[in-house]
């Protein structure tokens, strides 16, 4: 046998283990010196070994693992394996816990964000209400200031009326009738000169309204020279009440004239006369 190479059938019989011990030993001896037959037998062994893949599969007992490693003296890797597996398990558990914690944190955070958002909305509403109230307060304040100004004007007018009344009652006051220069005009007026208070009141009604850029200006003549006592305008009903301090040094006066001048008043009398009053009969 050692001199003859194997047939495929003989290689199969050897691989499947069906030869008697004597024939098996002869082939084994031949294979030690024949690489070609060894390759042939190896291929047959692959076919025979395939039978093992078709056997029912059983899981090896755990005790077999321990005793095999113990017998091989490989107990340490088992410990290492345990440690590694335990570490991996611990890492997995830790990762899961972290994930759960993160999820819970996200849920809680989301709830807090929702609450904060709600609070923010409420605050926005309150801020808007506060702004509305502030606007109302500003409007009220503005109206109050306006009323205060009106009140001040009324008080000022009241004070003026009181002073005028006092001037009319004062023995040191003179009242002059004012005449309209234009006969077509039906304006009426009086001029009160109070020497005690050194003030002059001019009251007139039915004054014609002036255009923009014009104003009434009242003058007092003294020694042929006209001294301005100031400017005034009539209201929409044509009424005007004007008071002014008597210029210092003006001790004698002959007449008073109201003219129409440009807005702001003129240093010299230039406009046409509207009213005139004779002051020569005033007591000095």
């Amino acid at each position, binding site marked *: 046998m050692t001199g003859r190479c194997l047939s*495929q*059938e003989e290689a*199969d*019989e050897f*691989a*499947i*283990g*069906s*030869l*008697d*011990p004597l024939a098996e030993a002869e082939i084994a001896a031949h294979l030690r010196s024949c690489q070609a037959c*060894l*390759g042939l037998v*190896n*291929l*047959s*062994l*692959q*076919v*025979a*070994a*395939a*039978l*093992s*893949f*078709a*056997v*029912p*599969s*059983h*899981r*090896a*007992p755990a*005790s*077999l*693992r321990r*005793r*095999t*490693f113990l*017998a*091989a003296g*490989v107990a*340490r*890797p*088992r410990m*290492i*394996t345990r440690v*590694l597996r335990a570490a*991996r398990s611990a890492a997995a558990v830790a990762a899961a816990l972290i994930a759960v914690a993160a999820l819970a944190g996200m849920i809680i955070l989301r709830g807090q964000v929702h609450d904060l958002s709600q609070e923010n909305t409420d605050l926005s509403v309150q801020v808007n209400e506060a702004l509305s109230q502030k606007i109302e307060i500003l409007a009220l304040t503005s109206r109050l200031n306006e009323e205060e100004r009106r009140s001040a004007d009324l008080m000022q007018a009241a004070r003026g009326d009181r002073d005028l009344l006092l001037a009319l009652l004062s023995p040191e006051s003179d009242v002059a009738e004012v005449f309209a220069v234009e006969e077509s005009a039906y304006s009426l007026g009086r001029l009160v000169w109070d020497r005690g208070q050194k003030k002059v009141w001019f009251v007139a009604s039915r004054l014609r309204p002036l255009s923009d850029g014009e104003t009434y200006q009242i003058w007092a003549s003294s020694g042929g020279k006209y001294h301005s006592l100031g400017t005034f305008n009539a209201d929409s009903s044509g009424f005007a009440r004007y008071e002014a301090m008597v210029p210092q040094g003006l001790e004698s006066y002959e007449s008073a004239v109201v003219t129409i001048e440009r807005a702001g008043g003129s240093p010299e009398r230039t406009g046409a006369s509207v009213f005139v009053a004779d002051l020569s009969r005033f007591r000095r």
Partner: protein
Amino acid sequence: MAWQGNPDPTGVRSISRTGDFARLPGDPLAVRQEWSDEALMTAIATRDELAFVVLYDRYAGLVYSTSLRVLADTGLAEDTAQDVFIRLWRRPQAFIAERGRFITWLVSVTRNRAVDELRARGRRQRREVPSMETGDPPQWNQLAATGDDPLAAAQVREICVRVRAALCDLPAGQKRALELAYFGGLTQQEIAARTGEPLGTIKTRIRLGMRKLRRALQDEKQED
């Protein structure tokens, strides 16, 4: 033991995932689970204990199942499986990569060791080798390789399905003859005596059975 790199054995035919070895630097066990069988054997030759752990976990189920199929005794099957792995650990150089795949070598070693045990215990005459179809119901969805490497497990499962399909196509007489020879450890004469068939018939059945099985497996490979 401290070796973390990729073993480079002479004669290893294919280590297609060499580039993957550096992907898991922190876990030496996970790194080795990516290694091929031949790479693990090379590492075991350098006394890499973790490589041995990985190889055991990968094929303990297959070795134990084969032993149990031959011996029909869980205790003896455990002893045989332990002995196979101990020998693998102590004499890894017995595996020569140039001669064939590791899994073929491992199954052959396991079968021979189990048959030796069977013969040594004198159980051959007392024991009727059950057919694969009459034994425990096959659990084809259960992996023969029970390790943590899903790729290796999938490859073994694929082989199992392929062989099972090939065996189903064999005539009952041929399949029976193959099983009695391979798992029962019986010679052709012993099979003829056991079945009452002529020796020539047994020889023919074994030869035809092996031929058909080889052809079926080759056809499957060509289809792949």
